[in-house]
């Protein structure tokens, strides 16, 4: 059993939990993920790692309520336990596999959308700890749903907040903010890391392709086992089929077939389920990036 040591509401149906999982905490690296199964009857739910403390044996997860299982997860209390918690899964971020010298020559921009802010945080924090300055954009529909702003401010050289409605920071979405920085302010980036809803990663990748900036995205498709066994998470990346769980979750954003990935993500969503989500959560359930027509 894996005990919930801390539970905190962030915003916009997004929750943070500290989980006691010494084996995972000891070996996990930024970019990797875990799978949580709450109880005997539960699904295996893949979640990105937001933070970890190897010495204390703690892994921090952040999740958004998007359906029945995450709703149930949010009802767990501090002191209660999840039955299964497995990880770290997937490959560590490509960036942290580079040497610090190489990284210091880079100029990196992280772009976070919605709950995708959580997996960016450990990467930005790792950069800070290794003396590498990075810029971070947090994009959100409106001010109230921004998460991890204070944490991110401590680790980013420059933090840019962009809201669709202009209620906080720059008025516009993540792409508008990139355009503002690169085209208007003349910032030069050698690398972009975009993590958030697939639709947001798609549009950031389209833009950075135009701007000729190599871009990494972190994919979160449907998974079952998370260890390469089932192939549910397969993606078209360039000419190849890749499994997000063992080959990823990070891929070259300019090669990922996002339209196919988004179609596959909807496989188990029924019309009824979508209607329920629209009713309950408005447009926020798909991240509120502003690029969605739904």
């Amino acid at each position: 059993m894996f005990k919930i040591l801390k539970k905190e509401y962030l915003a916009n149906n997004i929750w943070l939990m500290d989980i006691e999982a010494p084996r995972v905490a000891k070996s996990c690296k930024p970019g990797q993920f875990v799978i949580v199964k709450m109880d005997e009857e539960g699904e295996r739910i893949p979640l990105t790692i937001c933070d970890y403390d190897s010495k204390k044996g703690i892994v921090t997860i952040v999740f958004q309520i998007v359906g029945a299982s995450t709703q149930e997860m949010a009802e767990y209390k501090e002191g209660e336990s999840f039955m299964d918690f497995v990880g770290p899964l997937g490959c560590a971020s490509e960036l942290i596999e580079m040497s610090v010298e190489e990284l210091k020559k880079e100029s990196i921009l992280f772009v976070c959308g919605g709950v995708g802010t959580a997996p960016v945080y450990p990467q930005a924090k790792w950069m800070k700890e290794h003396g590498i300055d990075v810029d971070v954009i947090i994009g959100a529909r409106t001010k109230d749903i921004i998460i991890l702003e204070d944490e991110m401010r401590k680790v980013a050289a420059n933090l840019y907040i962009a809201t669709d409605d202009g209620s906080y920071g720059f008025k516009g979405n993540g792409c508008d903010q990139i355009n503002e920085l690169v085209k208007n302010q003349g910032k030069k980036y050698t690398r972009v890391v975009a993590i958030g809803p697939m639709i947001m990663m798609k549009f950031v990748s389209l833009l950075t392709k135009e701007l000729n900036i190599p871009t990494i995205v972190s994919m979160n498709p449907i998974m079952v086992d998370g260890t390469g066994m089932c192939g549910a998470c397969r993606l078209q990346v360039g000419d190849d089929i890749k499994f997000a769980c063992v080959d990823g979750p990070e891929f070259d954003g300019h090669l990922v077939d996002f339209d196919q990935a988004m179609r596959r993500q909807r496989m188990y969503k029924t019309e009824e389920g979508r209607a329920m989500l629209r009713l309950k959560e408005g447009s926020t359930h798909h991240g509120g990036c502003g690029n969605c027509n739904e």
Partner: protein
Amino acid sequence: MEVDVLKKIPVREQEPKVRAANFEEVCLGYNKEEAMAEATRCIKCKNPQCVKGCPVNIDIPGFIKEVEEGNFDEAYHVINKYSALPAVCGRVCPQESQCEAKCIRGIKGDAVSIGKLERFVADTARKNGIKPVPAKKQNGKKVAIIGSGPAGLTCAGDLAKLGYDITIFEALHKAGGVLSYGIPEFRLPKSDVVDAEIENVKSLGVKIETNTVIGKAVTIDELLNEEGFDAVFIGSGAGLPRFMGIPGENANGVFSANEYLTRSNLMKAFDDVYDTPIIAGKKVVVVGGGNVAMDAARTALRLGADVHIVYRRSEAELPARVEEVHHAKEEGIVFNLLTNPVEIYEDKEGNVTGIKCIRMELGEPDSSGRRSPVEIPGSEFDIEADTVIMSLGTSPNPLISSTTEGLEINRRKCIVAEESDGSTSKAAVYAGGDAVTGAATVILAMGAGKAAAKGIDQFLSK
């Protein structure tokens, strides 16, 4: 009970029409009278060929003699000297090509039903609460086993009986490997059979740590150097599912057999109490002809679908067990033999609508002696489908080989291990089962686990 020495005692089964709509076990097994009657058919050869046909060399005439005399507990202890999983093997071993293929009775008439007798013995022992006998003394040496499938459980069981301190590391949340996630309930009941046999292995003192991915959470080198294990056995199983590389294969409704079976068997998606969904499908096409293809097809059937199996060779080449093919046909699965998919059709939303196939004919035998299928030009035709299940085998999972220094793999990316003792290119590291051979059978994996247990014991007794 009357016995015709040339004919085996038939085993009772659920009626095809009834079982096609439930997940209960198809084969009901022998009762006491049937088992004792069948046991009389064994002539207890002095030089038993059946034992040579068994990958774990069970003393078959020995246990059958005990059954004939009604000593069922004794029969269990005879089998248990050789096999940790008799209730499993009695159900899923391909006896017709192993022990029973060598049975002298089979020269004229039916071979003795060794598998059904083994199953009877194991099931009776379970009902009577008979457990395997643990080691009297611990030897203080620690062995780590990677994977709790048939290879790992066998290796663990054998070493535990010799007094080793055994920990099995399992990546999934549940032990059993393919016995839990792959083989369906109607062929291998989970709580009654698989869980019970795993409990038996645990009763020998074996510890099982689930949710631990070796190669990610901890490496083989860390197990040896930091966690104090004296040797490691890798029985991590088959790995990543293969796809064909045809257009439309990423459409919604195309699954690997591994995914489909994992959802149904491990996650119990067929049961509404469990949260994991499965798309049952109304018209399902399963591509492939192995046991896994039969399992996927018969699972889809039980979830309410019309099911076709598409296989590129002819019936004679079907790699699945004869019994599985026979059961599948009885239940109403349609076989499209000498047929190969060339494209999967999808609608605007990306959902599968059908599959385009081409007819094949068998050409000249290839280097392996099997006649290779050749396309018949212009013979394309369509099969309507909303679900396509690809059952084309697997390729090895790189998780362990890529994180273990000095562990040799072959050009198919399988771990290289000696067949006789499971030793690998790395000292103190042994391997066996599908991780070494590529996808094979439960019993071959058990044979490899057994050989490695012997190898590890010799290595650590030096």
